[in-house]
């Protein structure tokens, strides 16, 4: 091998250094601490009433006071979110395959999908309650509705973005449609599928809460509505923090999965 080629290749990947770790974790943590401190200071300095804006301490108190109850409600919301999301992925990806695979189907289904997506989902929430009652089902369906569209769009886009030279390459070996799909098109679309899944997971939590607002007897959204009615603002805040945590954990869980499964994708450093 000559010096020309050796000089340009990248060395083996090394783990992040201590400094990188500090900036990765330290800086967001610093930001969080600063915001909480400001919030606390504001409630003390302006002596804001607890039922208007509770201080961080009030929120922590509220959480500790009802920890068991809150964890149970968190579990309910988390389950609805994950179930709806998985359902959307399991149904959305094959539908995207159909759309990407056939012009006819694309023309038939695509405008319909756009129209359905244009309807504000919150408008459907009361109807879902009428149809399915107060159980978990209408929540799962709402999460599904919010997640489905970004997954389908992203996946279909990914499947249609196979570079011409790769398509021609497999054709030059006389590959069948199935071979071309599984050896090239689908793997090539995977990073784009992940983009759709990551967009969807953020929407998933929103979907669960919307559905719980409208009609529920459990879940964090239900807790927020209840504490609003009884002016128990610290409890509502505690629930919101838990919702935030669910969202962050799910998103980074997906990112970690992506790094594990698609180490070759450009998006990852």
């Amino acid at each position, binding site marked *: *091998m*000559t010096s*020309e*080629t050796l000089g*340009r*290749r*990248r060395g083996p990947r090394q783990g992040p250094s201590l400094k990188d770790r500090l900036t990765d974790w330290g800086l967001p943590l610093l930001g969080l601490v600063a915001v909480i401190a400001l919030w606390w200071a504001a409630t003390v300095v302006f002596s804001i009433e607890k039922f208007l804006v509770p201080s961080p301490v009030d929120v922590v108190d509220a959480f500790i006071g009802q920890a068991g109850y809150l964890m149970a409600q968190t579990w309910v919301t988390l389950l609805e979110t994950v179930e709806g999301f998985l359902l959307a992925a399991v149904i959305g990806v094959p539908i995207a395959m159909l759309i990407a695979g056939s012009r006819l189907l694309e023309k038939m289904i695509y405008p319909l999908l756009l129209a359905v997506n244009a309807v504000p989902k919150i408008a459907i929430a009361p109807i879902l309650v009428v149809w399915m009652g107060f159980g978990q089902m209408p929540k799962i369906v709402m999460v599904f509705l919010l997640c489905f569209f970004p997954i389908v769009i992203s996946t279909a886009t990914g499947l249609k973005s196979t*570079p011409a*030279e*790769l398509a*021609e*390459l*497999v*054709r*030059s*070996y*006389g*590959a069948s449609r199935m*071979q071309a799909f599984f*050896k*090239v098109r689908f*793997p*090539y679309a*995977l990073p784009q599928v992940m983009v759709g899944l990551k967009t969807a997971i953020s929407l998933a939590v929103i979907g669960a809460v919307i559905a719980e607002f409208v009609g529920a007897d459990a879940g964090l959204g239900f807790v927020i509505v209840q504490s609003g009615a009884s002016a128990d603002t610290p409890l509502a805040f505690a629930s919101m923090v838990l919702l935030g945590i669910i969202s962050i954990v799910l998103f980074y869980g997906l990112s970690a999965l992506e790094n594990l499964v*698609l*180490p*070759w*994708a*450009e998006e990852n450093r």
Partner: protein
Amino acid sequence: MIELRHVSQVFSGRQGEVHALDDINLEVDGNEFVTLVGRSGCGKSTMLRMIAGLLKPTSGTITVAGEPVTKPRQDVSFMFQRAALLPWRTVLDNVMLPVEILRLDKAVHRERAHELIELVGLAGFEKRLPRELSGGMQQRVSLCRSLIQNPKVLLMDEPFSALDALTREELSVELQRIKMEQETTIVFVTHSIEEAVLLADRVVVLSPRPGRLRKIVEVDIPRPRTLGHNAHADRVTEVSAELHELLVPAPAGGAA
């Protein structure tokens, strides 16, 4: 090995018909190295794609190993201008792709893959991903992939033109060496007169719009040829000059 008889290709576009190739007759012998040169738009790539079975000629017949070409053949390989490697596959797995598609014996060909990777000087890089390689190295992997099923015919569409000048030269010399070790008929499209003279037994000169066969120049310089100082420098200059005159119009408005 390859025979083109009265081959024409007409593309119908928005501005009417475009005659890409017009009545091409050409015979390429087994184990011969032919380069196609010509200016942009003379149908070089079109001709290659038709031999590969990726494109049907509008009229005329093309045969490879005596059989008419109707679809891509297992014993014909096509190498593109870009490396076209699958980014999620390692070097070795990229080289093995045709073996999987053509459903050939994996164990046998894995051994051959290792040999080829060594032949192009990439031993030790089998487990690397394409993005960890330079452009020149990627194109070497692409070359291994196009040789893996031991093709009778290798069609190369400006395979080194996306590389920098030095890497390009180095790969041309290497291709010549590999060609001397492997029995393969090669048709090689290029813009570069230097490349054409270095590699070819015969240089086929095409003229543009419509693409016609203008002249076939025999390159009778003994191998291995090099681009630096060598004993045949005079002959190289002579052939290059001839090709140059054919390809670049004379200042006084000569028709080319």
